[in-house]
């Protein structure tokens, strides 16, 4: 309790907690869960966009998409490293992803059906992610905060790139391209709003996370910020949001929006989204097909070490 108070005081003073510092078990667990989920999201998130790498419509777009998907893999790598500072290995975490004990962002359980989805994912999915993540750059846990700073920088580049795809389709595009963009928005808008998590009245983890300064805004606050930032961008593109209740409240300056289908949210998290099985299969296949490669790398590293040791022994004699 003394340690706990001291810990809380440091957090309150906006000091960073580092791996070797004492921390409450709940804090550690919350962080592991959150960082792991975040890392898994980056990894699983490679698939929806990866789906269009071979079909990208120009070499410039192909290169940009490839680089983006690769960045996501990179983010996964930093985040697994951040989680490892809390005493769990990447292998354990991946195992928990594959056996379903840990989650990833449910947005990646939706399919990418047209090129416009590459624009939407950058603009909205990355946009929502950034909205969630910017406060995490000030997270009380040092390694996580530092990883987030780096990630946010790249994400905002991705977000601009996504919006630029939308501009090309919507403002410079053919009628077919505009229709493609609108259709993509229709599919993604509500799932993207769900990315901020359950509404505050149903959110489980908020209180403690706020106190520990892992979280700094509530789900609903972030969601509103996102809607306010995004709706004018959509209107600039000439798109219509699939929400009859969407309107600007002149007094508050906020865009009010309709009721989210929380049943869908729960269902997709529970495993019945359009692509949950497919995404898990993609991860499992990659993992299983790679077993012999990882075994080979390990065997080689051991042989090499044995040879080096032997050589050193001889040299020492």
């Amino acid at each position, binding site marked *: 309790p003394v340690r706990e108070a001291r810990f809380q005081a440091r957090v309150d003073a906006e000091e960073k907690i580092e791996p070797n510092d004492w921390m409450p078990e709940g804090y550690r667990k919350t962080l592991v869960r959150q960082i792991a989920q975040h890392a898994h999201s980056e990894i699983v998130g490679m698939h929806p966009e990866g789906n269009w790498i071979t079909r990208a419509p120009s*070499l410039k777009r192909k290169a940009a998409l490839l*680089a983006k998907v690769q960045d996501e893999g990179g983010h996964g790598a930093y985040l697994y490293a951040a989680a490892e500072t809390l005493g769990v290995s990447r292998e354990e975490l991946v195992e928990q992803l594959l056996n379903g004990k840990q989650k990833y962002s449910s947005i990646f359980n939706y399919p990418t059906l047209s090129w416009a989805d590459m624009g939407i994912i950058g603009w909205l999915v990355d946009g929502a992610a950034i909205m969630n993540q910017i406060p995490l750059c000030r997270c009380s846990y040092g390694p996580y905060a530092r990883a987030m700073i780096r990630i946010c920088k790249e994400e905002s580049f991705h977000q601009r790139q996504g919006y630029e795809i939308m501009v090309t389709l919507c403002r410079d595009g053919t009628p077919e391209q505009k229709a493609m963009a609108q259709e993509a928005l229709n599919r993604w808008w509500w799932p993207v709003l769900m990315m901020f998590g359950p509404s505050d009245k149903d959110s489980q983890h908020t209180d403690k996370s706020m106190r520990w300064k892992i979280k700094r805004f509530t789900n609903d606050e972030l969601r509103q910020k996102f809607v306010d930032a995004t709706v004018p961008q959509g209107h600039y593109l000439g798109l219509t949001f699939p929400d009859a209740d969407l309107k600007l409240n002149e007094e508050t300056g906020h865009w009010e929006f309709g009721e989210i289908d929380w049943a869908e949210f729960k269902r997709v998290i529970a495993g019945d989204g359009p692509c949950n099985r497919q995404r898990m299969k993609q991860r499992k296949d990659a993992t299983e097909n790679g077993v012999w490669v990882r075994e080979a790398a390990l*065997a080689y590293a051991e042989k090499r070490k044995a040879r080096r040791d032997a050589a050193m022994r001889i040299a020492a004699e």
Partner: protein
Amino acid sequence: MTETPLFAYTLRLADNALILGHRVSEWVGHAPVLEEDLALGNLALDLIGQARSFYTYAGEIEGKGRDEDALAYLRDAGGYRNILLVEQPNGDFAQTIVRHLLYSAFAHPYFEALARSKDETLAAIAAKAVKEMAYHVRHTAEWTIRLGDGTDESHRRAQSALDELWPFTGELFETDQVERALIDAGIAVDPLNIRARWSKMLDEVFDEATLVRPSDGYMQSGGRSGRHSEHLGYVLTELQFLQRTYPGAKW
């Protein structure tokens, strides 16, 4: 034939880079370890970047207003000029790695030489590519060694990949009239001048990897004249899908 030799030559360089880059890009998200998702992504990005530079230059040489995308997306398989090696399927990780080693151990010294071309644009593109290909060689050589000298299974797979792909290496060293003229003019590189280095490099890797270098039997060829394997067509159905389906649209 209205193609100038320089156009044809530049297009070959571009097609090699694009098709191999496309193949490697198929791995991203499916690699055996996360670090390889990143590394293979880098290899693919380098190659696609090289392809873009070569295509852009080819379009300028041709002077008919074709840009990199017109050249990449609007030619059917018979118009592609890449060698057969680069269009071979990814297969397992060993096949991808060995294919890449065979290509990059050639491309690295080749671009080194091309960086001294009398054609300044080719020289400049090559100079940039040299650094990239040095990394490709290093990365795929390391993996070839790991796989060859890893487990029995990885050794078997690596050897089998090498045996399967070896007959496609002869095409790396082929030249035809198009290239002969450019070689004589100091513009193109004579691949035969690269051969010894390529061979030595590979022997060193195979030696460390405990792999047996296949003997040089009959070598497959045809890519340079548009006679490909059945695999290329499938690559292009995906690669070109959007450009073909929405003709004239900008993306």
